């Protein structure tokens, strides 16, 4: 199939970007990123600048790939990362618009590659359990109810891609942050630091330039791991509770 691609090009963070038109011959078995590989090989053979895009595992788990495809982070297929999207979703002569994840906290590096270190900043503010190597008790010393562990797991499955932020009209990182707060806060091992963690991570979210949450829900709809909005509700409750009950 022949595809028409309208792709965002931008040479650096401070440069003005623009859309460029390309066409590429693809087949239905290709993944979306393999289709871009084909285009890049074509551009290189013409000694033109290939399109920069982020990718690594191509199995939907590392969280590196990050394209907005026809206006949707990770494209049209529900619960699927860009790298797991295949060309059988498209037909001959389709036009596809490809852009980077856009958010204030994600400056563009080049073309479709953005800087997401702001997400690391949020984790560094408290997204961990303070246990040094060697301090742990036997793993079976603290039983955890199966449902609680499963619930924590559903939050822990976040791949840190940032689609929730790109989907949000405010560029808010509430789903990302709350997923971590829920993962750790629901487990007995993580409860000790829970209040402090919530406050610190929420404060860091603001410092990193993420926007406020206005309950749009686009984050949940576009999350490739289908992380639930319930996480945000959990964090909001925890945040209000912690502000009311801690001294500092």
């Amino acid at each position, binding site marked *: 199939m022949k595809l028409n691609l309208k792709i965002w090009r931008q040479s*650096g963070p401070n440069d003005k970007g623009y859309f460029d038109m390309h066409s590429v011959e693809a087949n239905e*078995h*290709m993944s979306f990123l*393999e289709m871009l*590989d*084909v285009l890049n*090989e074509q551009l*290189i*053979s013409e*000694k033109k*600048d*290939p399109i*920069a895009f*982020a*990718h*690594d*595992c*191509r*199995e939907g*788990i*590392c*969280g*590196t790939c990050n394209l907005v495809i026809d206006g949707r982070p990770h494209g049209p297929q529900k619960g*699927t990362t860009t790298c*797991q999207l*295949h060309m059988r979703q498209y037909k001959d002569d389709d036009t596809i618009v490809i852009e980077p994840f856009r958010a204030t906290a994600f400056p563009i*590096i080049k073309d479709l*590659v953005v*800087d997401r*270190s702001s*997400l*690391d900043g949020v*984790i*560094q503010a408290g*997204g*961990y*359990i303070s*246990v*040094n*190597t*060697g301090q*742990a*008790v*036997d*793993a*079976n010393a603290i*039983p*955890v*109810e*199966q449902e609680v*562990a499963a619930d*924590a797991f559903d939050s*822990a*499955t976040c*791949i*840190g891609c940032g689609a929730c932020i790109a989907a949000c009209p405010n560029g808010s990182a509430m789903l990302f942050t709350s997923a971590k707060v829920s*993962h750790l806060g629901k*487990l007995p*091992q*993580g409860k000790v630091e829970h209040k402090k963690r919530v406050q610190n991570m929420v404060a860091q979210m603001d410092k990193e330039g993420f926007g406020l949450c206005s309950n749009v829900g686009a984050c949940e709809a576009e999350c490739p791991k289908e992380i639930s909005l319930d996480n945000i509700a959990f964090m909001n409750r925890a945040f209000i509770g912690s502000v009311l009950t801690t001294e500092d």
Partner: protein
Amino acid sequence: MKLDSKVPEGALAEKWTKYKSSMPLVAPNNKRRLEVIVVGTGLAGASAAATMGELGYNVKCFTFHDSPRRAHSIAAQGGINAAKNYQNDGDSVFRLFYDTIKGGDYRSREANVHRLAEVSTDIIDQCTAQGVPFAREYGGLLANRSFGGVQVSRTFYARGQTGQQLLIGAYQALSRQIAKGSVDMYNRHEMLDLVKVDGKARGIITRNLVTGELERFSAHAVVLATGGYGNVYYLSTNAMNSNVSAGWRAVRRGALMANPCYNQIHPTCIPVSGDYQSKLTLMSESLRNDGRIWVPKSKEDAQAIKEGRKTALDIVEEDRDYYLERRYPAFGNLVPRDVASRAAKVACDEGNGVAPTGLGVFLDFSSAIQRYGLQEANSRGLSTDDTNVTKLGKEIIKNKYGNLFQMYEKISGENPYERPMKIYPAIHYTMGGIWVDYNLETNVPGLFAIGEANFSDHGANRLGASALMQGLADGYFVLPYTIGNFLSTQIRTDKIANDTPEFIQAEKDVKERLQGLIDINGNQSVESFHKKLGKIIWENGGMSRNETGLKKGIAEVRALRDEFYKDVYVPGTISEFNPELEKAARVADFMELGETLLFDALNRNESCGGHFREESVSDEGEAKRDDNNYTYVAAWEWNDGQDPKVHKEKLKFDNVELKTRSYK
């Protein structure tokens, strides 16, 4: 060069405990003055950097990724082994040690493997305390499953995402140290050279991948946690950016590459579908518990399937060859990875393969669906007519493997509940790596290698669920202690300056090398060279190797290398964000490693583990080890592009008897 493994004296089970208690320590005030560089943030690198940060060292940690959470450890599905014996089924440290030695076909170091088995239990405690949501039983205690043909249930798991959860645990521990300031984290920095001063590893040269700027970083010691080199085959289950360059640059500076021919080929991957293909996707080994592997008995049927004139469903039972069940009646579809992979290759080489390329075999769940469906219908007292049995059976299979079936369907576009999956073996893990002694220190003083980047624990074949165990054992519980042996001798050494002639020269070398790649200004893309290299290595150093092919492969790699330096095209400049340049430098290193891999395979005229030499087979055509001549580690020294030189470390087995692995 004499390779001293530095294995401590004493009984096997006491070596580590005694050694740990008698190792020189570094006092807290001195730790604050000592700097350590860690390259790589997978399970091994992140856990090592975090733990050394906790201990009080000044750590500088580097990754070429945009965040330390992305390394390919994250993609491990199955689980992590530990000798906890929570299931009371007779597991023990010795049994895990023994299984690992035997699984590795007696080509690993006893003392290292025993230590790995010992610390395995601490890993589970540590990760649980960090909040890793391992699978649990109804009573809230940890669940286990059996894995990879061993007879006990010692594998801990977190759904099919164990690697992800463990890596996030290590990433969070690392993040905590970054916030405290004990670890300086450098994202998007790629190590392009190792710097030695007075024979010791004292720093690295990195390229900032965003700006292209070259930078010099110094420290008292350097730790490589840079993963495996599976991408030398171009198509593998590794991530696209996984590469050998950091390790290979160390080899160019005097470290040794040990056993590079020991590569693990995983039998259950989705087959290649076309030339554009960029990587292969693994389907968890657990599928072999219920799937039956077969090809059509007749080549005509295979041809008809390839051309789309027939499907699997048109082949009646009598015309199917369940070749694993036929050849290995005792283990059937559950033979180890290396055996299953070779058998698939034989079936396809004989012309019975089923994918459009001819390289694929069926993994069929229809028997399991019928069996489970009937059991379910009987136990619930429901109708046992075909439709109902099939429906119930599919539900059971969905509960067990739903996410894998969904992934298969996304990639292949075929519904595996209705038709058998097509699978084919692919490169998955590399047991070979940088040579290290018991301290995980290379032959270059002050240079350490941990995780998949070293060679030490898996011998010629790795057991399932042992990669995660080794990465975390090295990073959390071994290196942070053993590095003290070296660092305790460095307490009188001041901060290492990064503007000495050695650093300046190394930076200049890197700059010239990179500029040289751009200046070639040829006509072929980096990708096209990588593909050609992969094809040469796969055809001559893949699942089955022989002398003629290996010699031919070496000549072809050399010719390709010449062509590369004459005709590669790398766009852009060195001082900007330039992924093509990154790739070019990595492919250049892969060519040198690839050649060394073929030399190693040529040298080792025996079949062991993942290394199968056609010249060394039993009367029944099975792999035959040659313990008299090859019970050694082959560590290769780079020889400026001439034939590499081999150094041998003899392996001694005092606690296990060398036996032939049999799965008949």
